[in-house]
């Protein structure tokens, strides 16, 4: 399957949706299976290229380790930031429980 030639399945789409944290409806899964297959089919020309020995480009600028001076400077106002949160409490973001209470 690693050569990218196998067609994408409904199960693949459901798996990827879990990875991407998307609660898709059945209709969305069906539509996306077809859409992704079409795009991946178009990308088959790239997947089929022999590119051994060609280094990858992750980024167009040859910048490395851009550091700033370790100096105190103003940062965002906490109240202003928390005012944009869906739920905030005691100066923090409030979220549903993360650990199972049992």
């Amino acid at each position: 399957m690693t050569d990218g030639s196998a067609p994408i399945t409904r199960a693949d789409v459901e798996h990827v949706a879990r990875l991407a944290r998307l609660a898709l409806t059945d209709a969305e899964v069906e539509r996306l299976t077809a859409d992704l297959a079409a795009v991946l089919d178009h990308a088959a020309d790239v997947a089929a290229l022999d590119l051994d020995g060609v280094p990858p480009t992750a980024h167009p600028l040859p910048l490395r380790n851009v550091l700033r001076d370790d100096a105190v400077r103003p940062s965002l106002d906490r109240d202003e930031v928390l005012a944009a949160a869906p739920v905030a409490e005691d100066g923090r973001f409030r979220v549903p429980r993360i650990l199972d209470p049992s």
Partner: protein
Amino acid sequence: MSAATEIAAAVRAGRRTARDVLEEHLARIDARESEVHAFNLVLADEARAAADAVDALVASGADPGPLAGVPVALKDNLCTRGVPTTCSSRILAGWRPPYDATVVQRVVAAGGVVAGKTNLDEFAMGSSTENSAFGPTRNPRDVSRVPGGSSGGSAAAVAAGFAPLALGSDTGGSIRQPAALCGTVGVKPTYGAVSRYGLVAFASSLDQIGPFAGSVADAALLLDVIAGPDPLDSTSSPRVPAALGPGLRDGVAGLRVGLIDELVDAEGVEPEVRDAVSRAAAALEAAGATVERVSVPSVVYGLSAYYLIAPAEASSNLARYDGVRYGLRVDGDDVATMNARTRDVGFGPEVKRRIMLGTYALSAGYYDAYYGKAQRVRTLITRDFARAYERFDALLSPTSPTVAFPLGAKADNPLAMYLSDVCTIPTNLAGHAAASVPFGTGRDGLPVGVQVLVDAEQEPTMFRVMQALEERAS
């Protein structure tokens, strides 16, 4: 017509007030915005206050700066402090950022007047501005047609005369393609030339902010204001760019211009568009440039590589919309359920498609076949351009294969929509600069844009070519 340059000169000299200029533009917005829908938000009151402040500076004898009193429209993926910034997505509806983007700060510091936030394809993903959660923008030249995208609102705002200048962002053509379809100038600067601090990220190795304008001189005016290093963006280039204004009219005599075979003959290029590019090449020859055909073979893989790389980066960037720190939250019993429900309700179909595609391309077992290969293709494209730029100072191609298409024409076929960007994508993959200049008309009398491409940091040459084309466009 260099509207912005003339406005700034008149306001600085005290011949016109910024307030008068603004009211004229607000009146045009009142007259046509209901049919065009260029804006998500018109900031009339805030703009009046800003214009009055510019006038007060002039009255006190101070110089407000090179954009004095010029209304500027901002794509709604540029953060504006205390002013809603939506990315045309339900997931950010109502969000008010706690800071301004660097480009916004620079526009305001130069005396510019922010007129409003313009519509876009949700999170800048699209080529028609139909993927907006708040409804499509229409092309002011023909409102039955799309303005292009994703910066369709900014292109339409300039084309409709709502603002002489606008800012957009370009990840695979999102400034140049709508500029072409609306008949305006649109520039994608070299990667790193303009700070992206405060630009909502889509694909971080490709995104770049740039100007829309009614003329080449006006585009240079705005780019000169926004370009340059920014300590708040670690990917901004440390080089201070040369000012574009002074050499704009130096002409093209002696310049070597290459016509890119693979893009002139790309899939779906309309004959009228191909013809416009030929006429542009002839016009440059008449102005003293030499023009030859050139092959940049690997650009034919650009579209495929882009639609693996950009979604992969997007899937990572958009992980931050999790219902915790800003924007929409749809409740769930635990965090994972809350995240997933929020994202399903908050994102539109194209954004989900890209997140899914990108997550798939990065997932175990497929990484090498898709994302890894695409990154290697990116190297090939950069090498091919480097070879071309050994022989040429600038390259020429169509901007968009077609003129503006009717609303809905490609809405159900993602791949057909993606092909709109076939000529613009290679520049983003290489990190170079390119721009679209209106050059005549094509099918149904609609505007055609010609793309001028240059090597990284060669904007001064690009603007000379653009200016020469503008002077010879009929």
